[in-house]
């Protein structure tokens, strides 16, 4: 199972759950399996510079984006609005 970690604002829209385990072969399919998939995918379809997705230590955008393959023990982190200014 792939681990997916959400930022707090998205977790608040998912019943306060921050960590999910999903069975998916790619980043896109893993995110589609989330209860907040509508919010995440709307932001990523552009793509939005304020939403980043990391697979372990790598920005998924540099590894195929939504098609980036994931496997068991991988951790996907959704990061929202890194900039503070």
């Amino acid at each position, binding site marked *: 199972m792939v681990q997916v970690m959400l930022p707090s*604002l998205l977790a608040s829209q998912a019943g306060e759950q921050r960590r999910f385990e999903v069975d998916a072969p790619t980043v896109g399919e893993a995110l589609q399996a989330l209860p907040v998939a*509508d*919010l995440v995918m709307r*932001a990523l379809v552009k793509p939005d510079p*304020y*939403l980043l997705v990391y697979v372990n230590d790598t920005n998924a955008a540099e590894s195929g984006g939504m098609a980036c393959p994931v496997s068991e023990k991988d951790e996907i982190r959704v990061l929202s*609005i890194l900039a503070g200014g």
Partner: protein
Amino acid sequence: MVVGVRALIGTSKGLFILTAGTDRRRWDIEGPMLAGWSVFHAVVDHRTGEWIAAANHMVFGPTIQRSSDEGRTWTRSTDMPLPADCGLELKAVWHVEPGHATQPDTLFLGADPGLLFRSDDRGASWHVNEALLHHRTRDTWNPSAGGLMCHGVQIDAADPDLMFLAVSAGGAFRSTDAGASWAPINKGVEIDMLPNPYPESGQCVHKLVLHPGRPGRVWQQNHCGVYRSDDHGDSWDRVDGNGLPGPFGFVLMLSPGDPDVAYVIPERSYEYHYTPDRRLSVYKTTNAGKAWDRMDAGLPQPAWAAVMREASAFDTESVYFGTQSGSLFALTDDERWCEGARHLPPVLSVEVSPWSK
């Protein structure tokens, strides 16, 4: 048992709930709910008791959030599809209007860009109003500073088919067939910066309010003046000439018991968006706009305040408004303003309802 008033305060950082006794002098604050979301508008649907919020986020976009337990839990709806071939993208949700009393499952939603949605399942799913989407005057509409938003959705208390709405900047529209068609109702409403200042449509209506007790009376605070209609918008009388410091402003509050009473908060023109004369003042008419009197007892000075289009409300007992500087004001029995809260995030919307225990 009703013990006072409850205000739903939409802010740029979430929804706050303020409650006060019937004297409206001491307010308690809860919140924020929906933290992190810009709550453009939130209402209590008196037909069902549900709370409905139009919540937007710069990354995650527009949503409708519903709560049936007074804000403890929320259900999100993003099912607001647009036809693939319309070439438009939903940018923001602006105004939630519960439907007619005889249609308890129906809600309306005004949105950007110039869109009206209807839900017949209490907000779970939404359908765009095709007549407004494809309106023949849409080419004359232009976005205002905050976008091309549809707001001011109003439904006649006696006739659920008679509806009004406003688009900023597209003008005011009326439907006599429950939204199947929309007629522009902008006769005599000025756009003073255009070569032809009286076009059929394109006016920047900042606020449109139907008087709840007098059939046919509609008020609007426009980009270019304050107007009153006594014939369902067929014609408009401009009424900002006697006592107001200027024609520009956003909010409009009425008195359900007296159709000749209205309140506005003028701001210094579209280039500046703050109250004039170094003060925050409300102006009141008691004679349908023939004259206006300043009423600022209890309001801060000096002040350069701004009040957003949805940030005012009224009920049978009082009027209320919130400022971009994070204050909520309520008018008390002695015609004095009480600052019910300060240092909230910028206030985007205010709605009030009876508070029961």
